[in-house]
């Protein structure tokens, strides 16, 4: 008998003898993956909210509307094919962001101004 635990939201499921590795050889190609960005309201930037699968960008927009804006969460949607996104690598995180790490003089608090100088 395998172990059970209430690890997911709707409650107890088996936690041993459950395969998780993808076996893509058995499976036909799925629709490509799109990342979805929403502008919550005017005046805000688009923010990443998740992803979905669609056959083409137009369908991705429709699915994004149905999936991510059922309760007026957005006034504008961007969809981007996940394969088109170029991202920094977490492995080289430290060296990649190092150039900004030691430039404290870019921050206003680096400069000492007497307290009695107004409006600064």
């Amino acid at each position, binding site marked *: *008998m*395998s*172990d*059970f*635990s*209430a*690890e*997911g*939201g*709707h*409650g*107890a*499921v*088996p*936690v*041993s003898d*459950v*395969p*998780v*590795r*993808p*076996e*893509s050889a*058995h*499976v*036909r*190609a*799925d*629709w490509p*993956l799109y990342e979805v960005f929403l502008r919550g309201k005017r005046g805000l930037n688009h923010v990443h909210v*998740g*992803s*979905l*699968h669609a*056959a*083409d*960008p*137009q*369908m991705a*927009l429709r699915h994004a509307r*149905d*999936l991510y804006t*059922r*309760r007026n969460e957005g006034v*504008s949607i*961007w*969809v981007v094919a996940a394969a088109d996104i170029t*991202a920094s*690598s*977490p*492995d*080289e995180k430290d*060296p990649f962001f190092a150039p900004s790490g030691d430039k404290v003089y870019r921050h206003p608090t680096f400069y000492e101004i007497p307290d009695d100088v107004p409006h600064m």
Partner: protein
Amino acid sequence: MTAVPEATELQAHFDQTLEHSRRIEPRDWVPDKYRATMIRQIAQHAHSEIIGMQPEGNWITRAPSLRRKAILIAKVQDEAGHGMYLYSAAETLGADRADLTEKLISGRQKYSSIFNYPTLSYADVGVIGWLVDGAAICNQVPLCRSSYGPYARAMVRICKEESFHQRQGYELLLTMMRGTDAQRQMVQDATNRFWWPSLMMFGPPDDASPNTAQSMAWGIKRHTNDELRQRFVDMTVPQADKLGVTLPDPELAWNDERGHYDFGAVDWDEFKAVVSGNGPCNAQRIARRQAAHEDGAWVREAALAHAAKAPAVHSAEEHAR
């Protein structure tokens, strides 16, 4: 070119992230077991949402009014949405959506046992909202602080929507309780059938849950099964009183010393039978999911063929700015 970090260094970085209660994000290095555990947890949670459309979907065509039908459709659509958010989170760990569907249909990954019970009357729709979604909320609220970022964010979204689910269920039951004796009897009968399965949703007692300690250390489970079950019982008893139904447990009683309700023993043999495939509706649920998947195959293929023919219209360019 940076040197590949040592495994111990990666492990140390992972441990440190958890220690500081920072989130793990998709392309971070994680131990294989953490990845496998997260995929399993998120995938089976997603499957539960997807299969969870069926018991209530059963009543859409027979909802007693247009208002109730619109509410029920919206709720079932939300369950589909929850499944999609979660599959999307599982994919950030390297899972493959089509493969997950395959594993659900072939029965190698499971879903919550609660959805293997039939919905025999319309009152079941209300009781599922009240008890089953109520129990789900107890489980899910702590998951909003899961150490895995994409899962935690999906849970925040889901929890907001679950609140509507529970309230519509309770309101439905309040309405029926103001109706005829027969309607009140329906509510009591549905409560009798769903009470114990709802308590089973929290999983076996802590002393029979060997994985809990590791999951708590990884910050992917925040409270033990028994803690959550107790919280649910304490929340639910006054709601039952207000509703005017009796929870089917003669041992249910307030314990002044503990500051909690005591309750009877859950039948774990029934739980194990239902979750491993011998519940009243297991075969029907999977057959329905498989049929939907196969009936939709031509649509998925046709859409791909259409996309391959028609060069994508870049209307996004006009609207992007």
